[in-house]
């Protein structure tokens, strides 16, 4: 169907593998996302923390450099599970802000423009659509959490040597797992919010509100009923509990005893919450709304 011929002609070339088609959505989404200088600037700032931490790791092992600042190796922060736990907590916090910036329009724009039938009339399923939309955030948050985290860990491992790796290899797994727990929660939460709340500001506020309101409600229940089970509806505490368990309770900030949840209960509640988000998504992500 060459331009000059102006005829209808079928396509006879090769096709892309089906499994990779969900990645089309993030690729096209990034064209829009990175048009915003504000977002691009913020995304660049997200790499400042990994850079500073890499410098700390380097200084820890370079006595000559420490001497310039009149420091001894013991004066710098210890590079251990707590160090990486802090890093993941901070970067996931930035990941949350990143989600608030780009998450609310991911699906709402398609719903507002009735674009879903156009996606779903192609060899592209609802699951692929949702995964594709979630990938927009998954890739970006991965780029600022576990990817630099594992590089940081590798850097430390390189400077420390074999015995450190042997005794701390689990930290790499914790970095990866904790990041992915956050990534899945944030991306699923934001696409669900985007599917149900068309107005961008309201969806952004909803994302903030979910953490704040669930926190307040949880604290109220704990306070009124003198229990710790109110924390089951406190998303922030649930995530903190899971993070702590993954980093073997090497905390940068301990939770008060009356807020601490059993780890199993935190995982179970998170699972329920994610399942509820998926249920809401299946209700909304359809080619056409069926009036029964």
């Amino acid at each position, binding site marked *: 169907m060459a331009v000059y011929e102006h*005829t*209808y002609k079928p396509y006879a070339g090769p096709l*892309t593998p089906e499994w990779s088609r969900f990645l089309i959505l993030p690729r096209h989404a990034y064209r829009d996302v990175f048009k915003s200088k504000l977002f691009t600037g913020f995304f660049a700032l997200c790499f400042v923390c990994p850079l500073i931490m890499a410098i700390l790791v380097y200084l820890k092992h370079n006595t000559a450099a420490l001497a310039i600042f009149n420091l001894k190796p013991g004066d710098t922060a210890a590079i251990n599970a707590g160090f990486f736990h802090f890093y993941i907590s901070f970067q996931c916090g930035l990941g949350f802000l990143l989600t608030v910036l780009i998450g609310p329009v991911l699906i709402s724009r398609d719903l507002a423009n009735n674009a879903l039938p156009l996606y779903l009339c192609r*060899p592209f399923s609802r699951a692929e659509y949702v995964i594709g939309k979630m990938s927009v955030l998954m890739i970006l948050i991965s780029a600022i959490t576990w990817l630099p985290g594992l590089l940081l860990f590798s850097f430390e491992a390189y400077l420390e040597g074999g015995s450190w790796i042997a005794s701390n290899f689990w930290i790499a797994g914790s970095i990866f797992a904790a990041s992915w727990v956050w990534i899945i929660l944030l991306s699923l939460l934001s696409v669900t919010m985007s599917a149900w709340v068309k107005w961008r500001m309201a969806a952004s506020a909803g994302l903030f509100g979910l953490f704040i309101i669930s926190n307040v409600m949880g604290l109220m229940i704990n306070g009124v009923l003198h229990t710790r089970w109110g924390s089951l509806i406190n998303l922030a505490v649930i995530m903190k509990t899971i993070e702590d368990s993954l980093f073997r309770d090497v905390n940068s900030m301990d939770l008060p005893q009356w807020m601490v949840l059993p780890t199993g209960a935190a995982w179970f509640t998170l699972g329920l919450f994610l399942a509820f988000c998926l249920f809401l998504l299946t209700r909304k992500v*359809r080619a056409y709304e069926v009036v029964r």
Partner: protein
Amino acid sequence: MENALPKTAEPVGTVDVLPNTPELVPTAPVIRLDNLSITFGKRPILRELRGEFRGRAIGLLGPNGAGKTTLIHALLGFHPPSSGTAHIFGRDIKTDAKQIRGRIGYMPERDSFIANMTCVHFVRLMAELSGLPPDAALERAHEALFYVGLGEARYRKLGTYSLGMKQLAKLAQAIVHGPRLIFLDEPTNGLDPPARQRMLELIRQIRDSGLASIVLSSHLLRDVEECCEEILIVKQGRIAVYCNLEEERRANRKFLEIETRGPREPFAEAIAALGCEYALTTEHRLKVVLQDGVEIRDLYRIAAEQEVQIRRLNFKRDSLEDIFLKAMEDGNGSI
């Protein structure tokens, strides 16, 4: 747009099959409905539809709420059948939905696009989702937009397009991956006469290329009449009529409408004695299908014998409107 008929149109059966797509059955009907029923909650929308459709262009007609759009959506896999199934090019919509959708183009009735995208970006995205590699998708997007006549406006954002341009953009995204079957749901909705003519011309070109079959759903009988060879009339979720328009027209070539004054019944019976079929319509009118060997002068002779005046006599054939109205009046008589 200039005449865009291909110089060497290939027959439908020889269209190149995409390498990654399982072979479609070349001799299979375009669409086969096997007792297809769709129910929303407890409300039946389509009721046990049966039939085989092989035409290059099939018009889908019916009053509002008859189930036309639901039928298209069911064939696209948007609504799972509550019972029965359908086959497109021999493949079951229940089990081979993805393979089928790879060979289908769909132009929805409502505005469906992404407003802050340029048209070429949008069409390219749709081509990629159909499985085309990025480079090929971009090339095809440009070509499809030139084909539908949006070449000069392809870098404009879709949100700035007029209604007619949006309809053309929807057509471009439906054909960008070169489907073998294209569903067009009310493609001329809201178009002014020149834009409507342009749209119909494009549909006819695609039909005449023989490279894709078309299912055209429209309220406008004229559109269907101009573009389609076969029509499927749906009424209250059932197939009311399925016919080949050309055959229907040929069959009614000697159809006469006669307006008379005087005793009509004896006149009609005398005509019937010549072997012609007749139908009394309004008070002074009757319709007659002339048999071979019966001439108009025979009618005038009988009229003279029966002392009947022939006030008006028109050669007529059943228009699509007649077929449609007849279909609507059948059954419970309600439209």
